[in-house]
C-alpha cells in the first residue's frame, strides 16, 4: 500500500498495513529554529513539506489543488499609516485594514473593514466575486494530476470557504451587524459565495476524469473556544444548502471524503456540516478545548470521520509525554475512520527530537 491507499482505507474503515503520519505544517519560527539548531538546511527551512519529510512525516492532509473562489482581483496592498517601529496599518488583499508588525507572522489585528453595508458590498465586493473560467484549476494541472494516476499521497481539491471569507471581509462584529441591519444583504452575500463556489467547482470537475480527487477540503474558522461565531440556525438555513449542493456535485464526480477545517468548538455546527455532506473534521482541537473524535462518533456514527486531534503540546516536553499521547490516541485510532494529526501548525516550542520520535513511534504503533 502507498500512503494514499492507507489514508483512504483508514477513512473508509477498510484494512491498511499502517497509518500514514500526517501533519499540518509549521510556524515559520519553528522552521527557523530548526535551521538555527542545525537540523535542516536553509532550503528545507523555507518549506513545510521538506521540513516535515526530514522529521519523518508522510504528507500534509490539507495540501491540494485549489480553485479560486476569492476576490478577483484582490485589493491592492496599500500602506494606510506608518506607525513607526516597524508597525503600520495596511490595507490587505481582502480590503481590510490590518496592523502589521515586522517579524510577526501570527494573525494580524483587524483595524477597519470595508464591507459594512449594501453600498460597500455592491461597490467593492460583488464585482470581485463573478464567475470566470480562469478561477478553475488549469487544464495543464488537471492533465498532470490525471497522468500521475493515483500517486503516493491523496489527491485533494481545495474548495474554499462559504462563510469564513465573508467573516474575513467584514469581521465578526461586522457580519453580525449586517445580519441585524440588513438580513437580505446577509443572505445575498452568502448566496453569492455559494453560487460562485458551485460554478467554479462544476466547471473544473467537468474537465476532470471521474474520481480524480480522493478528497475535497473546505475551511471556515468560524468557532472559538466555547462555541460558534455564527448563529447555528441561521448558518443551517443559509449556508447548509450550499454545502449540500457542492458535496452532491463532488460525490457525482467520485469524491466521497469531504473534509473541513474549522477551528474552535464546532459542536453546534457539526450536525449542519454532516447533514450536508461534509464527513471529515480537521483539525480536532484537543489542546484547546479538549475535543476528541470518540464522543462525536458515538453521537453521529461512522459517517463522521476525522483527521487531527493529536496534542502537539507534548512536542515541547519529552519522549515519555509523546508516548503517553500516542497511547491516548490508540483507542481513537481503533474506532476507524480516523487519522491522528497534530492540530494546527507545529509551534516553536517543539523540540526537534520529540517530533522525530513521534513520527517514528506513530509508524511503529499504528
Amino acid at each position, binding site marked *: 500500500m502507498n500512503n494514499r491507499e492507507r489514508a483512504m482505507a483508514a477513512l473508509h474503515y477498510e484494512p491498511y498495513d499502517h497509518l500514514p503520519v500526517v501533519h499540518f505544517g509549521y510556524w515559520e519560527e519553528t522552521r527557523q529554529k530548526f535551521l538555527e539548531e542545525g537540523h535542516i538546511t536553509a532550503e528545507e527551512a523555507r518549506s513545510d513539506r521538506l521540513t516535515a519529510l526530514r522529521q519523518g512525516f508522510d504528507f500534509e492532509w490539507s495540501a491540494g489543488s485549489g480553485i479560486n473562489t476569492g476576490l478577483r482581483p484582490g485589493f491592492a496592498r496599500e500602506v494606510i499609516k506608518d506607525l513607526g517601529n516597524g508597525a503600520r496599518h495596511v490595507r490587505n488583499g481582502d480590503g481590510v485594514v490590518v*496592523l502589521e*508588525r515586522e517579524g*510577526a507572522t*501570527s*494573525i*494580524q*489585528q483587524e483595524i477597519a473593514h470595508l464591507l459594512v453595508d449594501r453600498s460597500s458590498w455592491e461597490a467593492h465586493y460583488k464585482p470581485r466575486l463573478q464567475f470566470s473560467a480562469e478561477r478553475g484549476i488549469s487544464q495543464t494541472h488537471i492533465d498532470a494530476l490525471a497522468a500521475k494516476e493515483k500517486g503516493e499521497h491523496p489527491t485533494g481539491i481545495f474548495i474554499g470557504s462559504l462563510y469564513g471569507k465573508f467573516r474575513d471581509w467584514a469581521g*465578526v*462584529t461586522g*457580519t*453580525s*451587524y449586517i*445580519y*441585524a441591519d440588513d438580513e437580505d444583504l446577509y443572505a445575498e452575500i452568502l448566496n453569492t459565495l455559494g453560487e460562485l463556489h458551485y460554478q467554479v467547482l462544476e466547471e473544473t470537475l467537468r474537465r476532470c476524469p471521474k474520481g480524480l480527487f480522493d478528497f475535497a477540503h473546505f475551511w471556515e474558522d468560524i468557532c*472559538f*473556544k*466555547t*462555541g*460558534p*461565531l*455564527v*448563529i*447555528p440556525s441561521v448558518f443551517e438555513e443559509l449556508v447548509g444548502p450550499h454545502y449540500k449542493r457542492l458535496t452532491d456535485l463532488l460525490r457525482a464526480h467520485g469524491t466521497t471524503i469531504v473534509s473541513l477545517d474549522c477551528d*474552535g468548538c464546532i459542536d*453546534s455546527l457539526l450536525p449542519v456540516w454532516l447533514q450536508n455532506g461534509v464527513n471529515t473534521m480537521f483539525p480536532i482541537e484537543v*489542546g*484547546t*478545548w479538549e475535543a476528541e473524535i470518540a464522543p462525536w462518533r458515538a453521537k453521529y456514527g461512522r459517517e463522521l470521520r476525522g483527521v487531527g486531534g493529536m496534542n502537539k*503540546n507534548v512536542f515541547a516536553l519529552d519522549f515519555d509525554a509523546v508516548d503517553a499521547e500516542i497511547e491516548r490516541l490508540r483507542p481513537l485510532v481503533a474506532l476507524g475512520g480516523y487519522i491522528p494529526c497534530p492540530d494546527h501548525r507545529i*509551534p*516553536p*516550542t517543539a523540540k526537534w527530537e520529540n517530533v522525530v520520535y513521534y513520527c517514528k513511534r506513530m509508524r511503529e504503533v499504528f
Partner: protein
Amino acid sequence: MSTEILANLSLAVQKGRAKDVEALIAQGLAEDFTAQQLLEDGLLTGMNLLGVRFKNNEVFVPEVLIAARALNKGTLLLKTQLVEEGVKPIGTVVIGTVQGDLHDIGKNLVRMMLEGSGFQVIDLGVDVAPETFVEAVREHKPQIVALSALLTTTMGSQRGVIEALEGAGLRGTVKVMIGGAPITEAYANEIGADAYTADAASAAQMAKSLVAA
C-alpha cells in the same frame, strides 16, 4: 410611571434593537424614571439575561454583539443624567490582550459583558506590555485586571504581567483574571492568577463575585 418600560428596555437590549432602546429611554426619562433605573433595571438587566442565555448556548456571539451595540447606544444616551445622579460603576476592570498577541475577539466579548454588568472597563487593546498594565493599574486603580491570550506561545505573557504587578508592589491591590483559548484552571493556579473563566458571560459573573468578596 409604568415598569413595563423597563421590561421593554431589557427586551430591546436582548433583541439588539438599538432604535427601540433609544425610543424607550426617551419615553422613560419623560415619565420621570431616573437614569439609574433605566440603566440598571432596563439595560443591564437585559444584558445580564442575555449573558445567561449565551452561557447556556441559547444565543450566540452575533446576538451578543448586536445586544452590546444596543446597550452602548442606551448608556450613551443616559451618560449626562447618570453623572448628574452620581451613579457609579460597580467596579473598574483594566483589560487587554497580552504582549505578542494581536487577537481581540475574546477580549472584546469579555469587555462587552463586563460593561453589560455595570463595570467601567479600561481597554488597553492588544499586544499590551506588562509595564503598560502596571501603569494602568496605578492610574485607574481597578479592582480587577483581566488578561487575554489566544496562543500557546503568548499565554506565558500572562505570568509576566502578574510578575510585573508583584514587582511594582501592586499585586495585592487587584484581582487578576485570565482567559483565552489555551488557558485552563490549572494554568491559572500555576501562574498565581485569582480566577480563570472559559467564556465571556462567566467572566462577568466572576468579576462581580470578585468585587463583592
